[in-house]
């Protein structure tokens, strides 16, 4: 068995810095994913909107990520760790169920109650990271926990201040709404178990996300069939929604980029640090809502104070996590979690460790790239173009100047973090 040579051309940035940058970039893109969906006017079922967005995620998966590494690389990676197929599909299913639960939670108890409840997902992820993958077992862990709690607290404050919904319906409905919100938080938080499992096994996030999208699309499609009255109804609704599908697909595309950054953060700094950082997307979502869509127009002074306080608390929490680099004893605990995976699934520890150091042992094997990958990328891009041609300009007022500023920041985070990832890890 061989150990691949260290990739001598890699830069020497700290992996903690790379992971932190990925977590922060994920936040900007996950928030940007929400913006196009705001343009979709009412009149469609939540399942249909979810299905449209996830279909966009699926198609987008065959554009940028395929262009980065190619399908040969992804297939070799999956063949080397086939046991992770099950985990990635389960993660996709967890996301789909969690996302559907959020729809019902908002319907029953309103966003201001539902959002803080499902936002506990980062604390759930932090707990699983500590329990199962021996994260936060060293000095500095208090700062991470404090930072994560601050981010959740800030997000709650933002949700409370920006939401106007009140609880409707009967007590039983409210209880079910609360159960749905808590259930969603549990689904999202538990979804990070497969994430971390994949990365301490040395898998590339591009490979993991590929399989993940199958589980996600399959589950969302099944839920749409069950809740939206069968295949005939879903097809008819999709046809009716075609003018709006481009915006959902665009949201899906942004989501793919954000999720990839989130996965790289989970790989290089663990879920306990990476997930709270990417959950600061609420802050960027607020910026989109307030600056581009004018959501706080006409609100009183107290609302603005709450928004300001929530934002400051979130930023302070993110700052605490950014500065809490894993100690040597914690890194040693991570290694023992990796050894467990290698032992159980017969993985080559040398290759896994190399991957976790930011090297790319798979690239040394030179997996083949095929001409038809270009056709695949072109076909996926063509779907976007086809939908864009048929897209209707939404009747929603936007502030174009602020939209330009936020898009610029989002693109800067893509280019900056993408370059950092390339220089330090070659997208390993």
């Amino acid at each position: 068995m061989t150990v691949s040579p260290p990739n001598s051309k890699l830069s020497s940035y700290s992996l903690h810095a790379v992971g932190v940058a990925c977590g922060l970039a994920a936040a900007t893109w996950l928030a940007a994913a929400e913006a196009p969906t705001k343009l979709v006017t009412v009149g469609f079922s939540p399942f249909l909107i979810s299905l449209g967005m996830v279909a966009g995620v699926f198609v987008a998966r065959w554009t940028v990520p395929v262009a980065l590494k190619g399908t040969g690389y992804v297939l070799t990676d999956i063949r080397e760790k086939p046991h992770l197929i099950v985990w990635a599909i389960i993660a996709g299913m967890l996301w789909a169920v969690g996302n559907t639960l959020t729809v019902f939670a908002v319907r029953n108890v309103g966003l201001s109650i539902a959002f803080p409840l499902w936002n506990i997902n980062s604390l759930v992820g932090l707990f699983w990271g500590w329990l199962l993958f021996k994260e936060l077992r060293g000095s500095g862990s208090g700062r991470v926990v404090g930072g994560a709690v601050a981010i959740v607290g800030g997000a709650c404050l933002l949700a409370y201040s920006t939401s106007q919904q009140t609880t409707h319906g009967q007590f039983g409905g409210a209880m079910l709404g609360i159960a749905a919100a808590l259930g969603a938080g549990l689904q999202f938080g538990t979804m990070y178990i497969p994430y971390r499992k994949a990365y301490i096994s040395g898998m590339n996030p591009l490979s993991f996300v590929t399989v993940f999208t199958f589980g996600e699309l399959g589950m969302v499609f099944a839920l749409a069939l069950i809740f939206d009255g069968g295949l005939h109804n879903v097809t008819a609704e999709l046809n009716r929604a075609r003018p709006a599908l481009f915006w959902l697909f665009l949201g899906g595309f942004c989501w793919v980029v954000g999720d990839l950054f989130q996965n790289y953060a989970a790989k290089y700094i663990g879920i306990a640090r990476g997930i709270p950082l990417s959950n600061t997307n609420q802050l960027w979502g607020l910026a989109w809502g307030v600056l581009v869509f004018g959501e706080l127009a006409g609100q009183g002074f107290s609302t603005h104070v709450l928004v300001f306080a929530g934002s400051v608390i979130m930023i302070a929490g993110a700052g605490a996590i950014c500065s809490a680099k894993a100690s040597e004893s914690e890194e040693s605990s991570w290694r023992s979690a990796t050894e467990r995976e290698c032992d159980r699934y017969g993985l080559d520890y040398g290759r896994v460790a190399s991957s976790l150091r930011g090297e790319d042992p798979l690239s040394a094997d030179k997996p083949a790239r095929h001409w038809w990958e270009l056709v695949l990328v072109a076909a996926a891009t063509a779907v976007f173009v086809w939908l864009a041609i048929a897209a209707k300009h939404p009747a929603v007022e936007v502030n174009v100047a602020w939209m330009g500023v936020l898009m610029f920041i989002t693109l800067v985070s893509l280019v900056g973090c993408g370059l950092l990832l390339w220089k330090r890890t070659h997208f390993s």
Partner: protein
Amino acid sequence: MPRQSKQKLVPVGSNIRELPAEESQRQDYIQPEIGPRSGSLHTGNPARSRTRAILTDPQLWLPIGVLIIGITVLILVK
């Protein structure tokens, strides 16, 4: 007298030859394999071993259990 007693005694670690940088980076450098421990899940049939390793991994049942809880809540709330 045991045979090894005739050998020259050296301090522990002093006889380890440091590999030149380029030699240690060679692709064919052999790493001792970290193999499965005794009582391992790995049998002669790789597919069967893998299936067994997946199904007996206690961590697997946690997300599956959570997924079942989520679907149950979904059925109740719809």
